[in-house]
């Protein structure tokens, strides 16, 4: 069985005179999405913590990520980069596909 594709088959349109603007634009929206995801998560955490009433702002500022926590955060950052860069990869793949078709 094959791996499900990461991008749709078919014509990939460009909208701006310079394709770089298309890619930056798409990356910007991906970034906005991840920011919104992070805001939601922070909001969830703050509300849960507030409800329990057992954590102070100093606890948060003094926290140091180590070991497995640090690794998990690194993986999360890598995932953010992947999402941020996906538009560039998609446009690059479309270019490769076009040159293959020629």
């Amino acid at each position, binding site marked *: 069985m*094959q791996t*499900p594709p990461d991008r*749709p088959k*078919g014509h990939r*349109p460009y909208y701006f005179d310079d394709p770089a603007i298309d890619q930056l634009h*798409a990356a910007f*929206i991906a970034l906005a999405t991840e920011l*919104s*995801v992070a805001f939601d998560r922070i909001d*969830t955490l703050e509300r849960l913590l507030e409800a329990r009433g057992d954590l102070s702002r100093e606890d948060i500022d003094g926290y140091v990520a180590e070991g497995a926590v640090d690794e998990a955060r690194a993986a999360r950052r890598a995932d953010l980069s992947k999402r941020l860069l996906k538009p560039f990869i998609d446009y690059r793949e479309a270019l490769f596909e076009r040159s293959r078709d020629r």
Partner: protein
Amino acid sequence: MQKFIQHDMLPRPDHDEQARQDFVSSLRGHLSGRVMPGAYRVYQSRVEPAFKAQHGRIPADQEEVRQVMTKDSYYQFWSAMQRRSQEMLWEAVIDPTERQLPQLIGRAGKLSNRKLAKGRRGSLRLDPALQVPRYHTAADIHLQPGGYHTDFTADDVAAGVVYDQGINLYMGGALGPENNLTGDTLLAYIQEKHPDFKPRRILDIGCAIGNATLVWARAFPQAEVHGIDVGAPVLRYAHARAQAFGVPVHFSQQNAEHTDFEAGSFDLVISHIVLHETSKSALVRILRECHRLLRPGGLMLHLEIPRGKTVIEKFMHNWESYNNNETFCRYMTDIDLKAEALKGGFTDANTRTDEFIPHMDVAQMNYTEHFFWKILAATR
């Protein structure tokens, strides 16, 4: 707006997956409600006047509009956003689906064997030898990666699971709690125009996940309801989903251009926004097959999306044709559906196209603020 109904065949997104879906839904609502209408305004205020100044007349057709609108920075900005939001809509639902796919496939197997109330049960008949038509395989319709027809693992249901969640996000939930809006719309039409019509055997063509099919099965519980599609994974999901909702429907993998059903064996043949995903030659063959399948006095109803009246509306309605892999839909603009139905064997006196106003939130419309459905109706 009623929330999207959860059932056993939908994955449970984790916190961030849910947040990603919520954002893309919100972004699309913002694009359709606040950004898209601006494209009409820039056309009227600067694009059309500039064209007129240069040519001494306004654009004659949507192709002339395309030449100038695609160079307008506002249109470019909206298009790039709209395209990216469509890609992200799939990405946001694919993550939880892939993560939980083995469990979903397992649940589909169990649901398939479930007996429904009053001893009734639905069925699923797949045809591995079926040749998926080129209008499905040439490009992934609506940008769903892999399309609606590709199996990536044994007993795959992913395409259906993804489609169900994706179309919910597509319209910001405006398709209803079970993505039932298209079925409801066509049902409202038949109740208004043919209030005494009580079909005993119904066929829904291009049914995908059966979201509209279930509307009909519930409205006519005495009827035997069939749904056909060319995509195996969407049909597996459709069957499991119908079983989860306890609604008996018979799904089979068939091409609507030539089915294996007996001639004259249906009272009602319907489709919901399917015809514009086919092709010029397939369209006539599908209508001819509908004619063959209907008993004398039987009814054919196809729900279609509007294609616009003014040149700018026509251009905007075809945004999806050029940017969302709806390759055939641009040709639908100038196709007279009634004339096609006549080619398929229906008579002039018994065939008509109607405009039907939906009960829906226009703020969720992606390409126009003035929406009405187009319905092709014919009696055999």
